[in-house]
């Protein structure tokens, strides 16, 4: 890779960005709506100039199987680059990722937790700090908590479904059951009436 060569991406031909920081500023200024902010030229440019290894992040992006994974991988790449090379703020990129927050939060199930993450992300998005945004939307503790907590309501939902089925079956068999229970109730009521009458007559007679 020629580190002195400007990015060859057709989107950034006019910028002549050679330094990684200039490139990030150009990406931030020219970011377009949509989930795809990274093409192979930009990826190669960042990979070549990043001080350290960006292989894991680039690999995640290359192997992303859906929109959510691709979006997180891009956020990971940009966050890593911003953390090491700056600039301190990338407001357009941050707000662009914030616009796709629903996609980013799709692995979370708990509505309350999603809302909490959304509020935190909203605050961070205005500062333009992608590493912070990434640490919020992919908070390992939150993800673990959500995953652990999700099993229980899922099981409970299934048990409720089973109870509903039992009740529905009981509803179809209500006729013979009610015949027996109705007769039992009639026998009890009649016995109570009889006992009351006998007691009253005995007391009256005595």
């Amino acid at each position: 890779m020629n580190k002195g060569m400007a990015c060859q991406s057709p989107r950034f031909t006019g910028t002549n960005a050679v330094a990684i920081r200039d490139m990030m500023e150009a990406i931030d200024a020219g970011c377009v709506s949509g989930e795809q902010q990274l093409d192979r030229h930009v990826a190669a440019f960042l990979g070549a100039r990043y001080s350290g290894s960006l292989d894991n992040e680039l690999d995640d992006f290359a192997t992303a199987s859906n929109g959510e994974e691709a979006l997180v991988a891009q956020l990971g790449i940009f966050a890593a680059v911003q953390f090491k090379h700056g600039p301190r703020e990338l407001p357009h990129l941050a707000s662009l990722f914030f616009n796709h927050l629903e996609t980013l939060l799709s692995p979370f199930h708990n509505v309350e937790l999603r809302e909490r993450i959304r509020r935190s992300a909203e605050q961070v998005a205005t500062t333009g700090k992608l590493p912070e945004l990434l640490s919020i939307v992919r908070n390992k503790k939150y993800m673990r908590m959500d995953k652990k907590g999700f099993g229980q309501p899922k099981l409970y939902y299934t048990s409720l479904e089973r109870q509903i089925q039992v009740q529905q079956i009981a509803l179809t068999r209500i006729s013979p059951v009610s015949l027996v229970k109705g007769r039992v109730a009639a026998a009890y009521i009649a016995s109570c009436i009889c006992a009351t009458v006998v007691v009253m007559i005995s007391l009256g007679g005595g």
Partner: protein
Amino acid sequence: MAKKKKKPVPVRQKGHRGGRGGLPLLLLAFCVIATMLLFVAAPALIVYLVGMVPTFVAIFIDRDPRKYASITVAAMNFSGVSFYLVDFLAGTASFSRALEMVSDVFVLAVIYGAAASGWILIMALPPVTAVILTALAESQVQSLRKEQSELVKNWGPEVSGRSLNEPLAS
């Protein structure tokens, strides 16, 4: 030496638990009262036997082994008869009074009317019970569905095992 064959254990068939149900108890109660009347106030036995005819009919036509209909009719019937047994138990009535009573239409109407109210109970309560049981089961289903929708509200539609695009069953 050949082993002794074990005797097969008699298996009690389902639906026959409790033997003949309420019939023995009913007959026992009837006999106890009849015996008591025979010793305490013999003329009362005539009123008792004539008055309890609807109970014999109920025992005869009730095919249920648990004899709930017979018990109901017997209880109501005895309520009606007991009004007229008081006179005998107080020692103020004789055989002629007993015969007079059993030939009185009003007396028989009261006694048999009480027995008829037993049949009314037997016929009216099963539909009422059906309505109550249906309402209970439906309200139970509704509350379970409500709990399910609460779970979906808190955890998203994936909690039901369905994907986001799949519509939830109503």
